[in-house]
């Protein structure tokens, strides 16, 4: 028996297991558990009263919602309320010149008073009590990251007289098409850029609507301009970023390489000083990375050579792959020589193909900074291949993959000596 036998056998498992897995919906289970929980809690009279109050405030509004014409923002009446129905504890709010500077209360439903025009990015610190925010009639701007620390914020209501914001299918949207925040449901707790993009993509693909609704998505302190297209032939939806607005700069992307939907997706993350956006070109190892900083941006390309469709090298290249990542809110990189990087996901044991010694250089880790518009890499640590990879195991896998193409019966060390006559050490 080998791996293929098992893979083939899994292809013939009973249909009911496939059906069960396909239709499994954890959110329903969570919901039913919550319901059971509510029934138990209801045994306590005091708790019942609290729940009833909350239901009166939130639940009835939901039931009263008329059907929504989701293709036309100006007609959305979803989650519309009358802010004057809510009790506002003025001592919890610090408001200056119509700007909400901070909220210090512990309520789960937070109404924003009518005198507030702008919700500042510092208005809400970490507050796990807040689950619902009700925008007052005059809120006309919400600064980026205003809600980013509210892990359990799930729902928005908007005063019926507010002309600037709408709720459509749980998404809070500004009238210029900026998605402020979604009811992220089961994906919401971490609220990373990936979570937001994944959720929006999933929603649009599943419902095949709102193609013209979202023009921009707020991700941390950046705003991503997006475009949704419907492929007439396959009926599938393609969503991709057309520009990024960050640190007061807008950069447009000409190619459709910043796809949100589909198999190849771009990635982005933010550190204290930088916003990093990494493209993901299909069927090519070349990866462009934008590093935005306060004052400009740098477009970094891991390879300086050209690659054909199959990923084969045409010109010269740096012989290393640089990957940027975030740690402790700072920007770091790791560099891996191309000979250890290429095709490592596709071919079992290939990491040993060009390995020549146990102590061969394998990985460099360091910090990245932009100084006077230039990208500065500061190496902090290097690793040998043996420190990070189980090369004994990889060698066994490799001998199986290339059986007949390397001499039989070599030990790992003998193989490394044999290989060193054919390949250079990694630099």
């Amino acid at each position, binding site marked *: *028996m*080998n*791996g*293929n*036998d*098992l*893979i*083939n*056998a*899994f*292809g*013939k*498992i*009973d*249909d*009911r*297991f*496939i*059906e*069960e*897995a*396909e239709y*499994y919906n*954890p*959110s329903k289970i*969570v919901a039913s558990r919550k319901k059971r929980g509510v029934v138990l809690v209801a045994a306590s009279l005091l708790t019942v009263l609290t729940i009833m109050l909350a239901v009166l405030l939130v639940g009835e509004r939901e039931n009263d919602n008329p059907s929504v014409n989701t293709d036309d923002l100006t007609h959305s009446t979803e989650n519309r309320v009358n802010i004057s129905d809510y009790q506002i504890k003025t001592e919890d709010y610090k408001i200056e010149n119509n700007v909400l500077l901070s909220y210090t209360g512990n309520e789960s439903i937070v109404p924003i008073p009518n005198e507030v025009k702008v919700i500042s990015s510092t208005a809400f610190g970490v507050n796990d009590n807040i689950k619902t925010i009700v925008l007052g009639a005059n809120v006309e701007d919400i600064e980026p990251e205003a809600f980013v620390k509210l892990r359990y914020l799930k729902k928005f209501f908007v005063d019926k007289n507010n002309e600037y914001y709408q709720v459509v299918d749980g998404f809070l949207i500004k009238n210029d098409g900026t998605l402020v925040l979604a009811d992220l449901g*089961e*994906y919401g707790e971490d609220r990373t850029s990936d979570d937001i993009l*994944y959720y929006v993509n999933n929603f649009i693909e599943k419902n095949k609507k709102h193609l013209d609704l979202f023009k921009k998505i707020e991700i941390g302190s950046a705003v991503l301009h997006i475009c949704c297209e419907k492929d007439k032939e*396959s*009926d*599938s939806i393609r969503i991709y970023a057309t520009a990024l607005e960050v640190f007061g700069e807008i950069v447009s992307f000409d190619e459709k390489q910043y796809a949100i939907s*589909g*198999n190849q997706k771009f990635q982005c993350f933010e550190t204290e000083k930088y916003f990093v956006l990494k493209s993901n070109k*299909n*069927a090519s190892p070349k990866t462009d990375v934008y590093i935005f900083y306060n004052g400009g941006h740098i477009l970094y390309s891991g390879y300086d050579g050209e690659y054909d469709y*199959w*990923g084969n090298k045409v010109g010269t290249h740096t012989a290393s792959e640089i990957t940027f990542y975030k740690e402790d809110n700072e920007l770091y990189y790791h560099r891996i020589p191309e000979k250890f990087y290429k*095709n490592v*996901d*596709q*071919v*079992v044991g290939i990491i040993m193909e060009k390995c020549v010694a146990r102590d061969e250089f394998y990985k460099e880790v360091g910090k990245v900074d932009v100084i006077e518009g230039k990208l500065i890499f500061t190496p902090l640590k290097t690793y040998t291949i043996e420190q990070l990879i189980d090369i004994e195991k990889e060698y066994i896998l490799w001998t199986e993959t290339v059986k007949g193409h390397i001499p039989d019966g070599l030990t790992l060390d003998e193989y490394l000596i044999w290989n060193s006559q054919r390949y250079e050490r990694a630099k």
Partner: protein
Amino acid sequence: MDDNLIIELYNIRDENAIVASDEKYGKYCFSIANNILGNNEDSQECTNDTWFTAWKLIPPEIPKVLRAFFGKITRNNAINMYHKNNTKKRGGGQFILVYDELRECISDKNIIDEGIIEEELVSYINNFLEKLPKKERIMFVNRYYSMEPIKNIAKRMNLKENHVRSDLSRTRVKLKKYLTEVYYSEWK
């Protein structure tokens, strides 16, 4: 369109069967192929091939669950294409990762290395899945039948990636133990 009607279209050799299948199950089959191949073009080709394979099989075959029937054909097509394309090293699908993970379930005892009958193995895996707790079973089927990336399984099941990874690993150990036991008792 209702599944019985689609099957009927195949039975009466009406080519609308292919259009209807693609409309209803195209996306599902594409996602299975794409999990394996990680390449849109090839995945679309596998999905198209699925309807032609179904055209050859129905009739006489009458699928009990049409979705699973198409899914299995697509999976098979995609695995074949993966092997065919492997030398070109295209795409970044899950196949090789899944293959590697499943290898862990194979005991190094010689007794189970030979004389394997596929039907027997399928029935053992069905028995094994039957006995698993529901959540573990769904996770296992998503990974080793649909070859879904761990990240997607975690999102779908509302769990952290590491949680899924460790659950899968534990279930693989169970499968290895189970297969070793059943084969050993058969052999004796």
